[in-house]
């Protein structure tokens, strides 16, 4: 088994303190025919941490996300959320337990307004969705939460626009706002900067930094942008061919020779 991957444990050491584990995979495996996309992965994410998963294309990162968020069921292994087995729970139940997820490919409600996209996320967390005789707009708190989330990602001015008309970078931020409005404790972000123009990345970085600083949410993300990963992460897990290759803080990962040869390559060794 790879590196210093965590095994069944409910506390995890990071940043000098013992922290509770929020989500944990135990021997998580998913086959696609003969391909072992995810192959016996053990990973534990500390509550309140910023944890990045990196690895070359095809390493199984997105499949791991699909398994952790309940979007896909594993061939074997378990997913534990705060020690509770959520492996076989339906998607909407997992969402209610505080797991929110963004997608690599933008995944919003295209012909609804930006505000309605986010308002639906807020409404999903409440208990009013079956009040068929009430007017949706009467539940002000959902709209307020949506507007607050849009403010956090800097999209407040576009609340009335139709989601499909947003530029790509704004759609990525809309996805973040959806997660924030859902008030998930654990945010699984699948390549939040994917397809974004270079000049928009710092803006998103700032949003992520703000979320981490102000909300105490746990963020687990898959990301190819090493600048984002190295500057924000408390912990980095490196995946390679469906397995965990290494795990550690950014400095340890940057210095790890196995990781360098598998993924980071020569270029990164000389970077600051």
């Amino acid at each position, binding site marked *: 088994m790879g590196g210093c991957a965590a095994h069944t444990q409910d506390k995890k050491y990071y940043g000098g303190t013992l922290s509770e584990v929020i989500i944990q995979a135990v021997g998580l495996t998913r086959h696609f025919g003969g391909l072992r996309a995810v192959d016996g992965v053990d990973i534990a994410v500390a509550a309140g941490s910023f944890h990045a998963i990196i690895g070359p294309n095809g390493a199984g990162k997105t499949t791991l996300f699909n398994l952790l*968020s309940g*979007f896909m069921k594993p061939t074997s292994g378990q997913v534990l959320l705060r020690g509770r087995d959520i492996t076989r729970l*339906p*998607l*909407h139940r997992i*969402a*209610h337990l505080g797991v929110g*997820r963004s997608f690599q490919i933008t*995944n*919003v*409600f*295209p*012909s*609804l307004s930006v505000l*309605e996209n986010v*308002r*639906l*996320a807020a*409404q*999903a*967390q409440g208990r*009013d*969705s*079956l*009040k*068929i*005789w*009430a*007017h*949706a*707009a009467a*539940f002000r708190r959902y709209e307020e939460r949506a507007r607050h989330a849009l403010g956090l990602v800097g999209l407040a001015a576009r609340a009335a626009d139709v989601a499909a008309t947003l530029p790509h970078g704004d759609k990525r931020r809309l996805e973040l706002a*959806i997660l924030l409005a*859902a008030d998930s404790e654990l945010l699984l972000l699948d390549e939040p900067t994917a397809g974004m123009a270079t000049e928009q990345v710092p803006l998103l970085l700032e949003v992520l930094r703000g979320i981490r600083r102000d909300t105490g949410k746990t963020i687990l993300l898959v990301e190819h942008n090493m600048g984002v990963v190295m500057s924000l992460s408390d912990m980095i897990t490196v995946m390679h061919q469906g397995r965990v290759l290494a795990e550690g803080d950014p400095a340890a990962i940057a210095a790890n020779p196995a990781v360098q040869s598998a993924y980071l390559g020569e270029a990164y060794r000389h970077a600051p």
Partner: protein
Amino acid sequence: MIRRIPPAGWAGAALVAALCLFPFAMAMITGQPVGEGAPKFWQGMLIQVFILAVYAMSYDLLMGYTGILSFGHALFFGTGSYVLGIMLKHAGWPLWQATLMIVVVAVAQSLIVGVLSLRVSGVYLTMVTLAFAQMFFILAEATDFREWTGAEDGLQGIPIPAWLSPTDQRLRFYFVALGFALIMYLLARRVVNSPTGAVMVAIRENEPRARMLGYNTFVYKLIAITISGVMAALAGGMNAIWNLNANTAMLGVGTTINALLMTIIGGAGSLVGPMLGAGVLQLLGYWLNAAFGPRWPLIFGVVYILIVLFFPYGLVGTWRLRGGSLLSLWRRRFGEARQAATDARR
């Protein structure tokens, strides 16, 4: 505090007022009594529009709002008319009890169809719903139940209470049908504006995303199919009262296609669109029939294609686009075609 009524609200109120005055205006214009001749005939025409409007609107809840493309909507409409007929004619129930029975049967039927068909989606769901409707169509035609359903002859001679006779009390029936359509519209609007309605729209837009947000989409789809089914069944019951019979055609594919046509002509996802679509289908059908005889559907087909080309979101849906975007839409659609034709000629 005075609630501000939006322009669309005033337009709706004006339309209802105009429909209330219509029989009397017709009587004044033609000089005939309100219960005879042309006024009576045109009341009948609009009564059918009102009934079809409710049926079309029920389909819109499913297709336009929740994104479920059912090919079995006639099932609810037809069953509603048969339940009413059987309850009045064979069970001798009073009208209100028969109406209640329509609701009970429709709820049971929608839940069964929903639970079995919503396991699949897309084309498969469409085919499963079609199969259900065909099943009941065959059941209604079966000679085994001739005593109850009249088999291929249909259930004829449903005894309607004299006070609601569609022939002798035409004006009264007109207002009952108008009230029925109005109440159903207000109920449907209430549903689509509710938090539940918002989730239905989310399902239409992107169902996996809705699930990921924490919505058990199956439950919401089941609610949509049930409300839609009950509404269609009540329209079917109303239709049986109007025609004094229930027949197998009401359960047939043609009836489902009509719902689809009315919804697309008027504009899916707008409630009023499909109601307008019902009016267009009914009135245009009448005039085309008068002008071209029994081959009128040929002409109607052409009209339908033109509507879909020029009003891609239906009459109401396209109207709601701002004027400028409609023009640019036509320019995009036909400008490119013209450009391509010019290029081809070179």
